[in-house]
């Protein structure tokens, strides 16, 4: 089938998965001990009060009615209101989303930018010091819990040497940009510096695991590709070594690497949650944890839905890139 049809098919599948996500999130409430009413009502509330609260929250309706209401509201972008703060759930969640995206994107850029060259160098200079250094780094990198790494970085770089702030996010990237536009170069650069200053440690913390993972995969993938017959045949036709390595071997190496990246996106988001906790980064992760602890269902559901859907979307993009690189996938 053609590439376009493949995308369409994947897209439809994605929508199906999102629907599944939404449904599971809805079901979560019913498999949990303790009802939402308990979360909202004061401890000594009378049964009458509780009934009223239940009716207000729409909890007295039959299950399927609640489900359909839920879906209908969702399609319109209405995810309810926070039990705790009363703020509209969707607004609250979407306001925190940019921070998390920023963190995820920054660490991904660091990871991909560092790891692919590292992996290639490691594979092409096998058994040399550069290789040993890279393999050691990647082994330690995938074995280190990122929250501990974050804490150690804070310990050394913030507490000891005072180079970086220990927490918080002073400026968002968007905010920094608008400062540049509206207030000129001076304040703009200052804003950007603040942003950078605050995001470096969390981004490095979150990105380390992936840098290590991708380095490992790139290295082993390259080694395997370089041992394939077509590499020898390609050299035999006179192609310079650099082209053999990069245009041919690396390209084929990246194909499975991208698959794994897609599978590991979950780890990225999970890691983001933890990193946010360590650095008090005001993103979805912090929102999620607070909502769980407080049994704030609308926020909790909204967060899970957004995370789940976002995940599906990103996976779709990864699939698209993968299919572009590996023509045999589309042919299936």
């Amino acid at each position, binding site marked *: 089938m053609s590439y376009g049809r493949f995308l369409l098919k994947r897209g439809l599948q994605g929508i199906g998965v999102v629907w599944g996500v939404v449904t599971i999130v809805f079901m979560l409430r019913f498999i949990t001990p303790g009802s939402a009413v308990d979360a909202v009502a004061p401890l000594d509330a009378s049964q009458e009060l509780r009934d009223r609260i239940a009716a207000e929250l729409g909890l007295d309706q039959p299950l399927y009615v609640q489900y359909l209401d839920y879906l209908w509201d969702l399609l319109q972008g209405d995810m309810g209101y926070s039990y705790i703060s009363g703020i509209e759930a969707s607004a609250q969640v979407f306001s925190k989303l940019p921070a998390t995206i920023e963190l995820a994107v920054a660490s991904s850029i660091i990871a991909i930018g560092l790891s*692919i060259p590292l992996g290639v160098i490691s594979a092409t200079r096998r058994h040399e010091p550069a290789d040993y250094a890279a393999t050691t780094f990647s082994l330690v990198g995938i074995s280190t819990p990122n929250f501990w790494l974050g804490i150690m970085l804070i310990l050394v770089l913030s507490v000891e040497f005072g180079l970086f702030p220990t927490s918080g996010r002073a400026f968002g990237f968007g905010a920094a940009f608008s400062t540049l536009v509206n207030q000129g170069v001076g304040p703009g650069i200052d804003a950007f510096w603040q942003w950078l200053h605050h995001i470096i440690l969390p981004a490095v913390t979150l990105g380390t695991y992936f840098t290590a993972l991708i380095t490992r995969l790139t290295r082993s993938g390259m080694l395997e590709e370089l041992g394939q017959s*077509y590499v020898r*045949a*390609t050299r035999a*036709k006179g192609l310079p070594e650099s082209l053999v390595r*990069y245009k041919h071997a690396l390209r*084929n190496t990246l194909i499975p690497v991208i698959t794994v990246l897609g599978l590991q996106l979950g780890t990225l988001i999970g890691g983001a949650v933890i990193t946010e906790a360590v650095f008090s980064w005001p993103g979805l992760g912090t929102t999620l944890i607070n909502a769980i602890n407080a049994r704030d269902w609308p926020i909790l559901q909204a967060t899970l839905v957004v995370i789940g859907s976002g995940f599906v979307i990103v996976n779709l993009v990864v699939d698209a890139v993968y299919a572009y690189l590996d023509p045999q996938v589309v042919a299936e």
Partner: protein
Amino acid sequence: MTDEILKVRNLTTRFFTEEGQVNAVESVDFDVRDGETFGIVGESGSGKSVTALSLIDLVETPGRIVEGEVWYRDADLAEEHRESHPDAVDGDYVDVRQLPESTRRWLRGPAFATIFQDPMSSLNPSITVGEQIAEAVEVQRRARANPRRTRSRTQGYGLGRLLVDSVVPSRDYVSEESHERAVELLERVGIPDPEQRAEEYPHEFSGGMLQRAMVAQALAGEPDVLIADEPTTALDVTIQAQILNLLRDLQEEEDMSVVLITHNLGVIARMCQRVGVMYAGEVVERGALEDVFQNPVHPYTEGLLGSIPDIEDPAPRLSPIEGNVPSLLDSEMGEECYFADRCPKAMESCLHRIDEHEAESTVDDAAHHVRCVLANREYDESEALGPEAKQEVITDD
């Protein structure tokens, strides 16, 4: 006297593995003439494929060419290197092995082109066939446009650009003209609908079609010598015939020499003017096709020919050669003739190193060399090696 385009002298390639030193190719001599097809025939493990790889300098670790010269006739190249590498130049011939690495690489294409046994594993599965053939064309184009031995083929293709291009198909390296030429080449080798085919991927081709495409790729540099390593072994019989015919046609049109490596005697008989027989890394007999096939001197060649069923003279039993192919581990090879333990005509004088002797030749200007004492004398039963002596040869260090 037809001129030789390639003269191989004393080529020796060894593999230094964990288990020990493997003598894959031992003191191999042969010539290839302009416009001829020279066959190299032997069983698996005889060293024929390694010989091919050694010619184009693609022997990979733990292997290494330890000795020998590969004389290639190119007057311009000889002239260029006469001063800087006096030992490497002899008249119009250049010893390729003594040239710098970049020059040797440069020769892949215009001097030597190679097609391998399994076309599917000779191509990158994720890049179109047309693109890969165009690559070969482009490489040659750039080499010709620039002085030799320089970075002509790299053309500023640095790591950064490569990383970007590695994700996006790099049409930048390969020019439009090269793509067009690739389509022309596909047409030349008889592939129908070449523009369409060029956009397809290797897995969309049939085996025979893909091998044709490989031939097209090999032609990109207008090579003097086409090395074909088992080109038809992986193909169906009917397709085999097509490919062989294609090779013959092209050879005539291009005035190209072909080194045809195979274990199939029928293919040799069909295509080659001269042939070399390899056993245990050595060339045991070589000469004109008629000489070798009709008047074989070396008992191995005899045995090889005798093990083919003959439809016109069906014998009640085939006569295979007794014994097994010897180990090529240096520690297990002795000083005697490597075939001695299986040879029905082994004699005492076979227990020493055998040099190449010249035997009778029925063809003008095609010498008949045999690495066997029987080239110059008759078999004498009284000196025969008994079974115990042969056993000793096998087990001896």
